[in-house]
């Protein structure tokens, strides 16, 4: 480490190296940060009477978590869960089917330039907005319900997976491609034996991970009318039925944890 040394006459001292070396820059950044914080915190308006009223509700919410009510709204919860799960499955499968060719087309080392441009553009569009905004637009176009949610999640799957597939393919070991090609393998044989076998293990993990993300998202897009458990949760909170809401949240946490462990297991086995 390059510490600062004092003049050779006195005792030699060591101070830690700073993250930002120039003193003026360091102080300017600190000053700006403090100024921003003062302005930002000052602009947060808090209605303290409303907050104190809310504390009673917070207590009820917390009590709901200790005594979740699975029973009284069970048919709604079940309906929401089935919608969320089926939406997640269909969107992940459909998204993967579309993401594979798009990802292949967006890899510079396999695709011709014109195709590369088109596929990268598709990816950029699919990733531009977060799911909830896409869901709003799709609900406006396709009407309320699971179909809009399914399309939203499919689009986000395409954006997520195509990009990662393309980036993965661009980083493969070219010598294996060369080897297959030198045996006289055609384009699809090269893809099958040289590209896919290098990309597949990581891809399987990524698909499992995206399934996990899709389920989480499916619990959110219901808020704007795209079906699923999110709609049930929104209704429960609108009615101030905190015990039912707590039950739904616990179920969501449970399934998410299950998905996370499953996808972690798959990734570990595939890697």
């Amino acid at each position: 480490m390059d510490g600062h040394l004092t003049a050779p006459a006195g005792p030699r001292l060591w101070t830690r190296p700073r993250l930002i070396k120039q003193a003026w820059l360091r102080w300017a950044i600190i000053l700006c940060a403090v100024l921003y914080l003062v302005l930002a915190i000052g602009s947060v308006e808090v209605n303290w009477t409303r907050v104190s009223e809310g504390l009673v509700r917070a207590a009820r919410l917390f009590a709901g978590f200790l005594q979740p009510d699975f029973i009284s709204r069970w048919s709604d919860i079940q309906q929401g869960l089935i919608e969320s799960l089926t939406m997640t499955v269909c969107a992940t499968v459909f998204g993967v089917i579309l993401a594979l060719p798009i990802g292949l087309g967006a890899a510079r080392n396999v695709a011709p330039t014109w195709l590369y441009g088109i596929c990268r553009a598709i990816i950029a569009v699919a990733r531009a907005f977060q799911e909830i905004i896409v869901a709003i637009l799709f609900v406006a176009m396709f009407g309320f319900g699971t179909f809009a949610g399914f399309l939203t999640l499919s689009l986000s799957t395409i954006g997520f997976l195509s990009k990662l597939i393309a980036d993965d393919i661009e980083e493969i070991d070219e010598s294996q491609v060369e080897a297959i090609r030198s045996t006289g393998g055609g384009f699809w044989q090269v893809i099958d034996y040289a590209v896919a076998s290098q990309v597949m293990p990581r891809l399987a993990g990524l698909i499992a991970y995206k399934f996990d993300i899709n389920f989480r998202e499916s619990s959110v897009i219901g808020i704007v009318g795209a079906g699923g458990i999110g709609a049930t949760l929104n209704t429960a909170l609108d009615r101030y039925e905190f015990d039912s809401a707590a039950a739904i949240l616990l179920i969501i946490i449970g399934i998410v944890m299950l998905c996370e462990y499953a996808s972690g297991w798959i990734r570990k086995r595939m890697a």
Partner: protein
Amino acid sequence: MAVLQGEDGARGWRLLTMEQRRWRWFGWFALVAVTVLSWRVMTQDTIWAFISDAPRQAQDIFGRMLPPRWSYMDRLWQPLWDTINIATLGTLIAIVIATPLAFLAARNTTPSVLFVRPVVLFIIVASRSINALIWGLLLVAVLGPGVLAGIIAIALRSIGFIGKLLYEAIEEIDETQVEAIRATGAHPAQVMSYGIWPQILPAFATIGVFRWDINIRESTVLGLVGAGGLGLALESSLNTLAWPQVSLILLIILGTVVLSEWLTARVRKAII
């Protein structure tokens, strides 16, 4: 990979053995069956007339969206400022809470692997599995609509994210450096400050900036559930079917996200 003996005695090479192939076939079959079943269940309440109508609807909506109502911009500066504040203050609160949690969760710094670590890990998982919008929904029900609910929602969601990445970084540090500081007779706090902290500082900064970037995205839509920011303007424009305003807000959101992504990339490059 397997070398198989054919019926005529000729040896051929296959990628998979028969056993593996059978399992793989079974897996594909199960996947198709589950997908078809899911599709049937999912679409049983779908009204196909609305779906076939969608292209016309889409054309109609985009027709109404263009051109964006630029004059509405005057009323978007305040929500934009709120959005940035929600993301920044939320991230800062999350960092302050997540840092000690990460030290409690990491195997090499936790006071007790048996009791403290599982509790902290549960907090981290619970925080991570609930989306910021759902936290927003809960907090708006509790605290009432406003920026404060948004800040806390972002903070609660980010604690798990930052905590998880940070404790993984702590577990990966080089123990020899810690040992070296300890060998000089340093106090545990000094070991922390000179042995562990400098090693995780780059990871710490990158994680914080990374999460800030995600939080900017999330805070743009938090207003949909009443938690302040641009989403609030989006919600009111959607409710009044003011599509030219919606398109302007979407453009602002896109601009903000792109700008924050650029800024994050710059900062990350400066740190590494």
